[in-house]
């Protein structure tokens, strides 16, 4: 097990395209770090740089204490689980899992095995060791009875397990996961998520995980690295990312449904959004400027008389989700979503669209204008 250190890591493609820029990160030994962000944000490229599949153009990468910029992937002591599993179709599960170990053995030569008895003995010992590793990993993943099948005869979930198993036998310093669950159906994804988490807890291994699904990120990571446009937007544990996003992008990326944003003017503690005047207190202190108000959907409720922060809204649609409902509201030009418990279902109706919604000023976040506007604290 080892830590991974990114120092100013960057990737420029020939032709000038900057895929990744200025990534500084310290992944602790045994930590589960998730790189998350929308498509094209550079998370996969970053992971592939760690794997040695992309050449590092700027910065330094260390695994353990070793600078590995110029080291070939197979010598970096890392193992990778691919999005499409990348199992060798002509080999059985057992052979797939044994493959990396076979490549590293000291006594594998077929010819020498036949000739030299000493060699043969050592080779046989190695054979047994390899098989033991494979069985161990298979058991951990619950695929022992699949060992003699070929990948073509397995389901998606089973294949994913085999892919993990192939990484497992290596006992690498770090595991790399490249969107391993995105090819599975929703239900399976949730199951596998839990299993991966359990695996991490059990092994205590350093894991670097890439996904575009923020829910997955939130549930799996010890720390999240939110990326956009090739740059790290925030690097923090999930709770912190959720409650104290560094900028508007992170705030809007994490959480489902995503945060509501309203633009308005703020001056001396009061925010003006359209006709409404909202006393926000300290957060809004200072001279007049444009800000963006951020509000989580579950913090938006039907206004009671006397609520200081209230807005006039029109109900656009109501979605019944079983234990809760999402109400889509039109406030001026903006579209907001309010997530309410199911019992409020009757209170919101498209046929009686006029409504007043309110929120607690302490629960609102303020951001500078712009997609990456910093949070104002």
């Amino acid at each position, binding site marked *: 097990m080892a830590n991974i250190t990114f120092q100013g890591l960057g990737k420029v493609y020939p032709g000038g395209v900057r895929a990744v820029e200025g990534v500084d990160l310290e992944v602790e030994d045994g930590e589960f770090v998730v790189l998350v962000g929308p498509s094209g944000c550079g998370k996969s490229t970053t992971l592939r740089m760690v794997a040695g599949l992309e*050449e590092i153009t700027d910065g330094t990468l260390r695994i353990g204490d070793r600078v590995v910029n*110029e080291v*070939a992937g197979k010598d970096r002591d890392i193992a990778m689980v691919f999005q499409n599993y990348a199992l060798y179709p002509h080999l059985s599960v057992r052979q797939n899992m044994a493959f990396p170990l076979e490549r590293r053995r000291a006594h594998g030569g077929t010819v020498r095995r036949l000739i030299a008895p000493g060699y043969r003995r050592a080779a046989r010992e190695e054979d047994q060791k390899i098989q033991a590793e494979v069985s161990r990993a298979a058991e951990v993943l619950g695929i022992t009875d699949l060992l003699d099948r070929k990948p073509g005869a397995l389901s998606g979930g089973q294949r994913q397990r085999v892919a993990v198993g192939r990484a497992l036998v290596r006992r690498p310093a770090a595991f790399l996961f490249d969107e391993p669950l995105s090819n599975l159906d929703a239900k399976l994804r949730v199951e596998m998520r839990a299993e991966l988490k359990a695996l991490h807890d059990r092994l205590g291994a350093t894991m670097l995980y890439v996904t575009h699904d923020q829910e997955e990120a939130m549930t799996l990571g010890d720390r999240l690295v939110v990326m956009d446009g090739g740059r790290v937007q925030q690097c923090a544990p999930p709770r912190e990312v959720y409650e104290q996003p560094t900028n508007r992008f992170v705030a809007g990326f994490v959480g489902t449904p995503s945060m509501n944003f309203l633009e308005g003017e703020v001056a001396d503690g009061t925010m003006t959004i359209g006709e409404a005047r909202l006393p926000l207190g300290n957060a809004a202190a200072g001279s007049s400027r444009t800000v963006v108000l951020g509000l989580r959907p579950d913090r938006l409720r039907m206004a009671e008389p006397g609520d200081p922060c209230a807005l006039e809204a029109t109900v656009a649609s109501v979605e019944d989700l079983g234990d809760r409902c999402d109400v889509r509201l039109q406030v001026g030009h903006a579209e907001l979503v309010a997530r309410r418990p199911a019992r409020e279902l009757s209170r919101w109706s498209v046929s009686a669209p006029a409504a007043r919604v309110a929120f607690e000023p302490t629960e609102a976040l303020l951001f500078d204008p712009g997609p990456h506007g910093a949070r104002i604290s």
Partner: protein
Amino acid sequence: MLGHHVTRLARGALAALTAVAVLWAAARVVTRDLVGGHGDSDEVVLTVMHWSGDAGQEEDRIVEDALRGYEEAHPGVRVRRINPGDAGSFYTKLQTMMAAGTPPDVFYCGDERLPSLASLGVLMPLDDFIERDRAEGVDAGLDDFYPVVLDGYRWDGSATGAGPLYGLPKDFTTIGFYYNRDLFRQAGLDEPGERWTWDEFLAAARAIGQLDGCTGAEFVTWPRMLRLYLATFGCDVLGDDGETLTVRSPEVLAALEQLASWRFDEDNTLTSGKSRVASGATVFLTGRVGMAGPFGRWVVPSYRQIEGFEWDFAPMPSGSERANVVASVAWCVSSRTEHPRAAWELARSLCSEEAQAGLGELGLAMPSRRSIAESSAFVDPMAAPSRDRVYLEQVEVARLLPVPASPKFDALLESRLNQAVLTGDLSVDEATRNFADAWKAEGDSPLMTGDFPRMPWGVLARAASIAALGWALVLGWLWRRGRPGALGRSEERAGVFLASPLILGLLFVTGFPILLSLVLSFTRWTGIAGLETAEWVGLANYTQLFTEDGRFWTSLKVTAIYALLAVPLGQAFALGAALLMNTRTPFIGLWRGAWYLPSVLAGVGVAVLWRWVFDGDSGLAKALLDPLLEPLGLSSPDWFGSDAATFGVPAFAIMNLWMVGGSMMIYLAGLQGIPKELTEAAELDGAGAWQRFRRVTLPMLSPVLVFNGVMAVIGSFQVFTQAFVMTRGEPGDLTRFYVLYLYNQAFDFYEMGYASAMAWILLVVVLVLTGLFLRGSRRHVHYEGMSR
């Protein structure tokens, strides 16, 4: 399940069989090479090369025995024997061996080739050896040889008959007609006398032609035979000086027209001469031809197997005079042999009395030694023909025909005049004029008349090395400029290493030979003598090709027409077949196998088959088409005979259809790659079968069409073997494909430089065509539909 096991068992068995076969083969070859004996270095090793002729295995054995006997009698000398099979392959191989400077020491040479080989300087004059022998008291027995036969191997630089002796004839034959005694009796005719005339010949031919299902005579029109025919009228195509063309003289024209009228104006007097299969000696075997010739003795071994009727031999009929020629083959010694003395002795022994006796008994030809010829070794009253003496008597009136040194003469003569007297698609007047013009153009060409300097190979080599070095430096400098990082570098090293076979191959196996070939295209070189004799002619080859050489343009036309026919036809056929195969029909594996099989077959046997199919007289095509065409008042075409101008090339295109199995497989695979949903959606949208094909299948198949199309076009420009075996380009040049003409120039006319220029032009044409094809296809090809 059982089928699965059976296949696996079969596969395993086959794999085991293959392994055993390979091991056996390797063991056999290795032990043979080791054991084969590399005798001691004091040993003299002589190489002897010959062909098997009509006697096939027997002649082969006789030569082998003679050589082994020689080895026993001369310890210290080992003889290696090479037999490439037939005369055509023999001369090809001889040329390549000479070109490489490793010719055989002693080899056959036909008398028709003597002038060209002698003038190339590859034959050793033998007179000095004979002199030395005489001084030592050994008699080569030259006096015993028939003078007219021996003189055929004297060449003084411009004519045969006088000058140094270049070969010892091993045997010879005079010429005449074989006749079917039974048919003569049936027609109530007297058998031919020894001084019979053409009038008698004609009368007999007509009479026999009247018999049911019979034809009067088979009359071959090879150059030598035609000239012999003319000689019986006291004329020839070439004057006595061997240079003036007399082919347009009134006597020659009259004689040729007479022959043509015998063939084309009368029924059943002469065979039509159309079919290549049933021509030559074989047609006589059917027993329905009264006479066959003009032939020599070489047909006797095969005629001796005739059981159905009696036959005999009659000399050449006389016109205004009696005339005959000899056809012979001699043993010659290479001018570059390392053991002249030993080679001479070997050649001499191969023409010894014993050797000649053996050959004589074969009956294949007449021993060139008078003493043997007139002994019972040859003259054998028991076996037919009974008139062995007749051959010998003809020697008295045999003469030497003047032969120009250039091998193009005979080739042109044959291909041009045959159009008048064999296939009948031109008149005698036109054909002779064609020939005269062509030969004159040949003589007048700057290549023939110009005086050219030798190739400065040394300078070239030095310049080339400097250029190569320069290129290497430039490439190396470019390489260093764009170096990637360390990981990229190791990747690059791996890539270059893995691709090294290709890189090395492109440089040495492809690039260097191509460049050398380009250089050769600016030279004049026989290919037989060493490279030092090559002459620099600049662009003369190319100018000659483009401005003077009508046959070049003809061959391009023939090839282009073929391409225009065969490619669309073949591809449509293949696609149609693939569409049929793409259905769920029972035994589909069987059909696929059957359709693909022809393309894995090759070889001589297949060529014979096709000659038979397209035979003008009795081929399968005629048998199949006549019932269909006769009611319409038509008859099936004479594919390679009188209708060759319209049907010759299409015949090849039809043959090509049979070989489309490969293309068909590719189309089939392409069809199977089209997602079924596309055609299903089209069907639901209301598209009929044809529309589905045109609007869905065809566009989806377009990449395959391009690929197959390009391959087919490239292939059509390289047609050679079929044309070579079936028609040799004839009649005239009507089926002379480009590569065939290239081959003629290189191996029949000894014009390697010229041929190299043709090869380069071919390369450019193919590149341009492919480029156009690809460019044109880019607009119409869709690549998305196929699973990438």
